[in-house]
């Protein structure tokens, strides 16, 4: 299991593996790799516990009924499992937040990380749902299909990210 024990692997190898995952996705599920739809599926089910009208909203209903969204929800759960296996096999220690925040001169303390994570997550998914896809769906999958819309989405992801990162972390 030396493959899993190393803590750092080539990003090219990772990319090749992820690109090959498109084959079972298209062949067996008739869809492309993606991640952000699963948030609509999960929030639809969560909110329907408090608000019975959720399932009648067409947007939520779509993501709560189609098989491919259950597959995608399983996919993102699997991502957590795979990362857990990989992390445990490499024998590193756990921490509340990523030590890599230090490279940005950002405090790894719990409270600021919680607040920033929460706001970031909210912005992230509003953006992804407005655009109709995220870094996986528009990025990796959209570009692999030569989609014009996805290529424009990727350009603007970088525009937004570069501007925000420079405003937030430039001093580091």
């Amino acid at each position: 299991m030396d493959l899993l024990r190393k803590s750092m692997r080539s990003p090219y190898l990772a990319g090749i593996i992820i690109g090959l995952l498109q084959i079972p996705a298209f062949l067996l599920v008739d869809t492309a790799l993606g991640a952000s739809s699963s948030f609509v599926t999960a929030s639809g089910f969560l909110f329907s516990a408090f608000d019975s009208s959720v399932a009648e909203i067409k947007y939520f209903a779509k993501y709560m009924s189609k098989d491919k969204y259950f597959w995608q929800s399983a996919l993102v759960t699997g991502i957590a499992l795979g990362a857990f296996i990989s992390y445990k096999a490499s024998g590193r220690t756990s921490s509340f937040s990523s030590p890599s925040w230090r490279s940005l001169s950002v405090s790894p303390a719990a409270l600021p990380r919680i607040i920033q994570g929460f706001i970031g997550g909210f912005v992230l998914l509003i953006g992804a749902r407005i655009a109709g896809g995220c870094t996986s769906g528009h990025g990796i999958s959209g570009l692999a299909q030569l989609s014009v819309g996805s290529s424009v989405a990727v350009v603007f992801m970088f525009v937004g990210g570069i501007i925000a990162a420079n405003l937030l972390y430039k001093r580091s």
Partner: protein
Amino acid sequence: MDIFWLVILGLTMGMVFGIALEKSRVMEPGVLINQFLFRDFTMLKMFLAATATGLVSLSALTAFGIAELHPKGFVVGNIIIGGTILGIGIAIAGACPGTVFAQIGRGYKDAWFTITGGLLGAAFYGYNKSVIDGALDLGNLGKITYADFVPSVPFWMLGLGTSALLVVFMFALESYRPWTSDRKDASGGLGHSPAE
């Protein structure tokens, strides 16, 4: 396929995905954000390799006629504004909607709050979709692909050609900046030593 097997398939594929994200460190906030600051090129390298491999995979599947493409629509306002907001979100959260799950697996507890924020963000859009989409309405160009501009050329030919260009670009990028040098200067404390 039966829903049970779809879920098993999703979990299995996700595990492979998660191992790749964790081993390549692409799921580290520092790696993503330092890409936007052009201090670490791990994310771009992984992204290019995934796109090039995806192009080859889909070229093969469509050339043999065993799969159909599903490009997303080009809803102009949504794509431009949504893409920009998504990029800002990545810079704030230090995560993408997919890599945040790898952060959960890696044991970063703050990622649970990113997911909570994400669930609320997705719900906010779901409840206000018509208002938001109405405000951003700049037209819809449909599910166009670059292959549509050259109808005489089959997708697989264009796909393999584009993939080859990306590979050339990757080799250039790698010689300018080897992947092993990336995190040394930027992402402090990321998996150099097993003791980390």
